[in-house]
Each structure stands twice: as structure tokens, then as C-alpha cells.
């Protein structure tokens, strides 16, 4: 009986954990896409500096890290999500 309860609790924990993990992954994926696209366009199409563009991204996405590439922006949440937006003259930035 006790083993069953322990097993049930473990499964429940796993389920809840899995749910939150999936949710966090989903949010991280959107955040990485948003930051990569917004900052890439801001820098390469808007003609602004990376440091000026970054604070325009809403605070809710502060956990998304971003790095400037020669032709775009890579945004990521370590272990959860990673996206790149690439700039091409005449076509702006495209999320890959």
C-alpha cells in the first residue's frame, strides 16, 4: 500500500514537473523567437545599436539571452530554446 502511494506520488510529481517543463520550453521557444526577430530587425533594419535595442524587449523576456552575429541575432534560453534571425539586405530579418 505504502509503495503504491509512493509510486503514485512520484508519478504525480513527474507529471506536474513534465507539464511545467513543457510549458517553460514553450515559453522559452516563443521568447527566443521574439528576441531574435525583434533585436535583429531593430539593429539591421532600424539602424540602431544592439545595446539600444535590447531594452525595448519587454521585461518578461529578460531571461532570454541574445548575442549579435555578423548578419543577425542569436537568442537563447540555455537548455530550453535557441533561435536565430538572419539579415539580408533588401529583405530585412528572417527567423530561421
Amino acid at each position, binding site marked *: 500500500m505504502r509503495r503504491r502511494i509512493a509510486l503514485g506520488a512520484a508519478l504525480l510529481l513527474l507529471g506536474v514537473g513534465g507539464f511545467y517543463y513543457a510549458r517553460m520550453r514553450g515559453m522559452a521557444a516563443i521568447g527566443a523567437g521574439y528576441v531574435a526577430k525583434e533585436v535583429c530587425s531593430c539593429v539591421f533594419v532600424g539602424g540602431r545599436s544592439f545595446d539600444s535595442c535590447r531594452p525595448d524587449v519587454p521585461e518578461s523576456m529578460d531571461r532570454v539571452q541574445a548575442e549579435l552575429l555578423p548578419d543577425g541575432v542569436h537568442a537563447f534560453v540555455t537548455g530550453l530554446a535557441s533561435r536565430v534571425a538572419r539579415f539580408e539586405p533588401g529583405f530585412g530579418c528572417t*527567423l530561421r
Partner: protein
Amino acid sequence: MVIGRTFAGVLLTALLCGPAQGGTPLPPQPPGVPWPTASWPEGRADVTDAAAFQRAQEQLFEPKGRGGLPDTRALLVVQGGRLVFERYAEGFGPESRFRSWSMAKSVTQALVGILVREGRLALDDPAPVPAWRADGDPRGALTLRHLLTMTSGLDNADGGDGPDSFVARLLFGDLSADTAGNAEQVALVYAPGTHWAYSTGTSQIVAAIVARQVGGGREGFRAFVERELATPVGASSLLVEFDAGGTPLGGGYTFATARDWARLGLLYLRDGRWDAARILPEGWVDFSRSVTVLPSNAVYGAHFWVNGEPALDQFRPLRAGLDAFEMSGNAGQFVVIVPDRDLVVVRLGEMQRFTWPELSDALSDLIDAFPQRAEPTP
């Protein structure tokens, strides 16, 4: 069965509701004022209440976000065809390109208008979407009019600001590689023309229709935009971005300088005419500002917003009662077209400190400081 219901719905809507047509006559370019194709003619603002104007414009540049910049980055007023006010936040200027967010939808609508003028698209034909052409597909009854008025009934409404929303997934998430295809592959949940729901996905479908009609992929689309819209009005900074599959991001990502956004506004204020040329077909601007009145819609025209008392849960762009229609986008992007005052007002930037009602009120106050034109004697 579904088809029958669809037709009945369309018929009922046409009979009972019908679009509220027209509005204040659109003022022509005043004699002697050159068109701003090469450069903007400048002039002095003629305001009825100088203090109110000053207060409103200062208010718009007041709240500063976390980067230390004011939320408003650019504010322009065009009166009687002349640029009478222009102010930028520090670090921005006439050469700065600003993103549209949803104002892109209005640019996409202009491109549809051009193709309608050329006889290459028709508002009331079945929308040319190959994915809907199978026999018995109820979406086959959808027209460009349904799509442009956001009354398609497709299950692809934006659905809020959260990361799970359709628009977030479409622009930044798992649906972003093929925005139009993913927005097309949804069920019809209301009969066409009977329910309003704001949908960036629908604008992506429209952008893809334009791109297919024009042909030539991204290069072909870009050349079309330049040749038919940007060059004729002198908006050389206009740039539309694309998704990874090559569909123009006509629902959310178009860039232009503040002066070029004002040029696009002036094109609508002048009824789609520019100098000696007609760019948008006759009646197109009236269609843009005609509200398909439904229980779910009181303030949306055809990829343009109109002012009035919004329907329940509907967004209110500017103060009800202002005789204006506008391009409007996330974070308070605005190109406001005010026929009875012969104005175009452009506001671009962010909304970190402002709330929508605050920004909307400040912008409405600014417009209110300008005089209404004397009505021409009939």
C-alpha cells in the same frame, strides 16, 4: 449543409448589417501645395488651442522606459499636405526606420487595392487560396472582403498576448516558418461575414495571396511594392520582411521612416490619388473605413481601424467621436488619417510606461487641438 449555412449567413449579413459606408469627404490636396514625393513641403501648424497641443505633444514624449528613452520615438503632423510638426526622441531622426507591428496590415491592404485596380484581384470573388479549393470545402466561399474585414470566421484569431496565443506561435514560434500555410489550415468556426475576430494569420493569408498574384518570389514581391507603391509616393524606405518560407510578413513586420509612414497616410487622406496618378481604385479608401457592423465589431473597417464605441471586448484605438481612421499596431504605432481636419498624425515607438488608454487620450487630445475644416458649400 455547411455551404448552405454559409450562403445564408452571407446573405443575412448583407441584408441586415451591411457596411456603414463612407464618412466625411476626403479632402483633396490644397492648390499650390506640392506633393511630398521628393521632399515634404513644410508649414506652420494652425491650431485652435496652442496650449493643448503643446501639452499633448509633451505628454507623448514624457514617459520614459527602461532604456532611458521616451516611449514615443517619433511624432509627426501633416496638415493641409504640409509637414507642420516633427519631433524625435534622442538618437532618432528622419532617417530612422520604424517597425509597423500591425500597421503592416494596412500596407498589405494597399497592395490588394493596387491589384484590384489592375483587375488582377476582386473583392467578392472566392479568395485565391489553393488550400481551400477542394470540392465541398466551406472555406472556398471566403472572399478577400471577408479576409480584409476580419470576418472570415476562421479559427485563427490572435488570441491575446500570451506565449500560447496563435499570433505568438505564428510570428515567433512553431508556426513561424510558414505563416500563411499554418493560418489557412484551420477550421471555419463561424459562417463567413457573421463574426469579427482580429487575426494576424488572416493578414498573412492575404499577404500570400498578393505574393502569389505578383509572382517571382521574394524578389518579385519586393519589386512590386517598390514599383507600384513605394516609388510613386516617394516612400523609398518602405521594407516588408518575410517568413522563412518566403511569405511577406504583411501582418506584422513592415518598416519605414516616420516621413514615409506619413506619405502612406496622405495617400489614404487623398482618396488613393497621388499627384496625377490614381494608386488605389475609386472607392477603396471608403471601403477601408467602412465598418462591417456586427455584435462583435463596431470599430474595424478593412485592415484599418475606425473610431467609435467599440463592441464588447473590442479594442478602442482613439477616442470615440474623432472623425478619423487609422493604421494601428502593437506598442502604440499609429498613422491617423483625419479627413475633417485635413491631418495625418504619425506616432511611433514603444509602450513600456504608457497604457493604451493614456496614449490614446494624449493622441486624441493632440488631434483635437487642430481646427475642423470649414465645410465646402454644396
